[in-house]
């Protein structure tokens, strides 16, 4: 660089980035970043209230309200969980999946969204294989849109249910949260971070409550750029070292469908990153073991660990329904100013 370059650089005041117009609808939940800690606390406590409510009272809350589930990727857990949550509040749900004829015939997401709105859908729960799709859908329909997983990007209800699970195990089920609620807690997320929307949502949420998040995996699945995701996130490639410090360990599945040509030696991967009973007993005998599913037993975790006493995997599933009841209720009532 020549000597004149430096002063020139200092003069550059570039055009600002315009403010985000999202969310268009106050009931939408596109990203965990749409929620401040007060809203997180509200959803956690509301989940507990709804869970404990008389089902016959609860199902009057959204009686006959119409909610569409628009699923471009197959999903058992998340779809069923949202469906049960909406139905528990009395709502009518309709499922449009990637096998539906309009999607198969190539109708755009915008047109599908507008059609669902015209059919009377008051909120849309979207699972999509393309990162950012919920933002497009919300912009086109202005309906409350709940992100049920978009590409490699986010899965905000999963982060909330994971948080509820962690609080149950480590904080006696506290549901009022602040920036210190998880102070001193180290949570390790292990495996295919690059392709994981669960990891991204958790990385954006948990440090805001004071947790330290360690991410662990080989460079192909955990690029250095991961550490720039936000404060409170550190890369620890040595799984054993990470385990030794962890109160919570979240195991992720390797997303073979997104590897896009990446070469990975699975035997080597298992040697380095598989959570075995032996590893757990010797390095983290108290840690809570979590997994967003679907689990590939024998790959990222052994069957013994998945079914063992430290596993909170089935708690995560039950917590999913509770959290999603609160999120679905908020979707419809927020725009009416009722939550």
């Amino acid at each position, binding site marked *: 660089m*020549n000597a004149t370059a430096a002063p020139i650089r200092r003069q550059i005041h570039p055009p600002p980035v315009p403010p985000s117009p999202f969310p268009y609808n106050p009931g939408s939940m596109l990203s965990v970043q749409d929620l401040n800690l007060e809203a997180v606390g509200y959803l956690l406590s509301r989940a507990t209230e709804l869970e404990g409510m008389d089902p016959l009272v609860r199902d009057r809350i959204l009686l006959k309200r119409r909610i569409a589930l628009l699923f471009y990727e197959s999903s058992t857990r998340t779809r069923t969980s949202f469906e049960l949550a909406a139905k528990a509040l009395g709502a009518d749900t309709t499922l449009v999946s990637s096998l539906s004829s309009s999607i198969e015939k190539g109708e755009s997401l915008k047109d599908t969204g507008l059609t669902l709105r015209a059919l009377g859908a008051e909120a849309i729960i979207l699972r999509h294989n393309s990162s*950012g799709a919920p933002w497009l859908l919300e912009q086109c329909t202005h309906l409350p849109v709940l992100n049920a997983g978009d590409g490699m990007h986010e899965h905000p209800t999963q982060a909330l249910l994971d948080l509820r699970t962690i609080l149950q195990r480590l904080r006696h089920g506290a549901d009022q949260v602040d920036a210190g609620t998880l102070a001193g807690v180290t949570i390790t997320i292990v495996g295919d971070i690059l392709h994981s929307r669960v990891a991204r949502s958790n990385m954006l949420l948990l440090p805001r409550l004071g947790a330290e998040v360690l991410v662990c995996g080989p460079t192909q699945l955990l690029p250095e750029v991961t550490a720039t995701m936000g404060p409170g996130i550190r890369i620890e490639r040595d799984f054993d070292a990470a385990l030794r410090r962890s109160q919570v360990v979240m195991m992720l599945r390797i997303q073979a469908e997104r590897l896009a040509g990446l070469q990975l030696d699975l035997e080597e991967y298992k040697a380095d990153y598989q959570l075995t009973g032996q590893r757990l007993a010797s390095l983290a005998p108290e840690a809570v073991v979590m997994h967003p599913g679907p689990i590939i037993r024998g790959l990222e975790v052994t069957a013994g660990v998945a079914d063992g006493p430290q596993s909170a995997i089935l708690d995560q599933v039950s917590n999913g329904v509770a959290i999603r009841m609160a999120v679905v209720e908020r979707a419809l009532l927020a725009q009416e100013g009722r939550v």
Partner: protein
Amino acid sequence: MSSLVIRGGHLIDPSAGVDAPKDILLKDGRVAEIASPGKLKSANGAEALDATGLTVAPGLIDIHVHLREPGQGYKETIASGTAAAAAGGFTSVAAMPNTTPVNDSPETTRWMLAPERNATVRVFPIAAATRGSKGEAVNDFAALKAAGAVAVTDDGHPILKDGIMRETLAAAARVGLSVIQHAEDTRMTKGASMNAGPTAFKLGLRGMPVEAESSLVERDIRLVTELRDARVHLHVAHTSTAAAVAAVRQARRNGLRVTCEVAPHHFLLTEEHVGLYSTNAKMNPPLRSAADRDAMIEAILDGVVDAIATDHAPHATHEKEVEFENAPNGITGLETALGLCLRWLHREWKVPLGRVLSLLSAQPAALLGLKGRGTLAVGSFADVVVFDPKAEWTYQAAQTRSKSRNTPFDGWSMQGKVRWTLSEGRIVYTGE
């Protein structure tokens, strides 16, 4: 043909070294006379435009536009694209060959130049370097040049194979054509839809590394070096990375004929402007980091950049209203280039007005060898833009003359309002 006088304006003609109040007489499509105010000798009876308080300059030249014809008239036509050009002060546009079919033949080149296309300003076709722009078989450049092509490129795709690129550079040099490279090593950008880095990671999008651009620029420069033929001219399209600009700078120091252009979005915007998946901030090359953006500004200031070119790439609304990864690349640019260059390069970053105008007219004309364009010297084509350099206004994409409105600059404030655009002596645009 009739004659026309532009009176009372301030003429800036960078290549002629003029920056002074002048009256100017246009006759039969050419510049006939230039004189101090009130001193024209042969202006009697000519229609007059009052340019008091306005700047008069050579019509702008954009060497990188996609006019979409033949074959994609729903995005843009030669008529609508050149109307947008005129509204932006452009009088010459070089049209990229990624049409349907690809412009890889003299027939298509001639079709684009036919009067039935109703072009408002001059169109200069750039022909495909290889058959179907597939990067496999080099076209007959002599025939394409005879039909009217002014350069060759496979824009939208790189010419990836060393042997084919070498052959392209050599064959184009023999007939006096420039080779324009879309520098992207596509082996590094599979499935990617924005710049690689923290923003792409956060958004869960696959990223295009800066090396995909710079490594191909470096490869091309190596090929130019090896050819040892002074006639070889490599022009790097839409340069977006500090490393690519550095490679061009070094090649020039080594005496090679290597030039580059920068698009307004690459010296103004960064990957942050993608926001939450705004498809009007999706283009190829993508918006880069702030450091790369700053390097584009520095390259303009220190003279490595030879032209500002818009990469005007219209797409229909329905094509852009899709998932970010599925949206086509590109934004429109003809109507916003001058307003952005004056607002930012000139006013904000203090690039002299003459330098800005040179990057938008004289230098691109020289780069593609467009004779009689990019200057208002007596005898040259009467391609003129008359604009109010002080006027501030807001760009409204809904008012565009293009068929498409895919721009990130909708609602942006602009400086410098075009009052008249003249193409070969005819008024082709009148602003209010």
